[in-house]
């Protein structure tokens, strides 16, 4: 009986840690998305602005929609926390890749400092997103294909 209770407490602790990590990561992506949106306003031309508006809005929406979902999930169900987190992170990480491959593209005519900042932010999103995807998937024992 006692062992069972200890096991349940352990599961809750693990779930709480996972929930905290998931919410932290989604919030991190939300902040980065907002920063890229703000940088878009400094692009100095409509093409660069629309690029940031498109990719940044997708990141912000993917985070804002999923944060309350993850927040409401029961810590005793790690898979219930991991699945929406992974869904959100796939989108944000993909848009991070988008910044990496388009920041210096000639069409968008982004000023060099802004392009470089978006390029770096894109890499941060890509690397952090990948790390979080792999670790959350492993901790919750959930497939990355959710």
């Amino acid at each position, binding site marked *: 009986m006692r062992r069972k209770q200890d096991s349940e407490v352990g599961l809750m602790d693990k779930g709480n840690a996972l929930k905290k990590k998931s919410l932290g990561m989604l919030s991190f992506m939300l902040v980065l998305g907002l920063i890229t949106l703000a940088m878009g306003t400094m692009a100095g031309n409509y*093409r660069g602005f*629309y*690029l940031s508006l*498109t*990719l940044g809005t*997708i990141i912000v929406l993917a985070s804002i929609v999923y944060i309350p979902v993850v927040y409401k999930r029961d810590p005793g169900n790690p898979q219930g926390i991991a699945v929406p987190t992974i869904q959100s992170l*796939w*989108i944000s*990480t*993909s*848009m991070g*890749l*988008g910044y*990496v*491959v*388009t920041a*210096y*593209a*000639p*069409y968008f005519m982004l000023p060099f400092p802004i392009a470089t900042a978006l390029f770096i932010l894109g890499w941060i999103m*890509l690397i952090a997103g*990948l790390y979080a*995807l*792999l670790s959350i998937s492993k901790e919750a024992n959930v497939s*990355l*294909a*959710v």
Partner: protein
Amino acid sequence: MSQAEKHAERKDVYGDYATLTIPESETKSTLNIFMIYMGVLAVVAAIFAGSGLAQMYDAATMLEVALLGNIILAIFGGLIAYIGGSTRANTYMILRYPLGRIGSIIGNLIVSAIPLIVWFAVETWLFGITVNVIYPHNVLTSIAAASLWGGFLMMITAYYGFRAMAILSYITVPFWYTLVVIGFFASIDLAGGFSKVWTVRPEVIAPLGAGITYVVGVYASGSVITSDVARYGRKPWSGAVAWATHVTIFMTALLFAGGVMTLLTKTPNVIVAIAQIGLGVGALLLAILGQWTTNDNNVWSAALAWINTTGKLNKKAWVLILGTIGTLIAGVWAGLWGMSLDPFIQFASLLGYFIPPVGAVLIADFYIFRPYVLGLKDIKTRYKFGPGTKYAAINIPGLTATLLGGIIAWLSGVYGLGTPVVNGVLSAFFLYLLIAIPMAKAGIKWEVGEWIEKETGF
């Protein structure tokens, strides 16, 4: 014994439930099924098909043709997906009833085993084109050479099944859709605004029927094998709803976007259009990644189909055999055809003739013949699977209707009579019922031979 217990006892010898029904524990939500279909659609070939349409129509007609063609695909593929969702069985398994066990092997060859090798070759060829657009002046990056080494790399990836490639594939897909949208608006921006979209047109406008056939043909193979994904649906209708939504909305949007980019930039293909717009080398490299990760799936699926056809060798051996064939076809095509889209268009049209009749016969058998003629009203037990299940070796009306439907569609195309794909589907559908119902009512044996399912599901 419950269905779950039966599943627990059966070993999945070939992997991915190739010859077994899906257990309840493996089912997925409707949203998940939708995302899987979207992932399949996210290939360069989808917007390349839009380029093909742009050579036939102006933008408004292109939208009309794409929507009509995709509505046909939504209904057709949706009905088949519902069969997969109800029976939890893949295409190769459900074809055992309308075509017979041997007939299903023939159907399997028509639907997947052969076309997927060609798809592998086509995607490899497109890979060669993309590499050549990025790096045009090098022997190793000529279309032929790039197709050969690209095909080899894709085959090796599929052989080892790198997890990293799967991860890259997931990351690529959402941005790939965004990139198509960006490319679409960028091409309009460079052309001088939305008004230009409706004024640009090719020199000769093709008949509507040709375009609808083309659109249906592009995804006909996919719509016949919708059960392969829909069988995982938690609800019987999950796959049907997911399929119909993604094909009507997103396939139409992709075709239109690809077509508009081609019309406005006046380039023969979308990859060149993306390069001309100035979306950067990175975007093109991303397109390569998309092709790569899609194509290793093609060769994996082709291997699955050949296992179901032969019951011999394992997946890895088939990947090597089929990948080598596909790579050689791409190299030869690239050498023979250069950057022309003709092989792609011809292949899509050929699919449009011969694959849909298989689906039409399946629909006629499942929705009409078995419930209303044979009295099998319960949808969940209409098609049964499991060790010891007896199947007919050949379903005579099914095979006859399939072959005649294909021939009618082909002749319609050759002589320009109506819409060939629709002719083929309707012919096969009614021919099956016209042959099967009188035979069944008159007590004439309409199935020959017998095949008993083994423990492995083969």
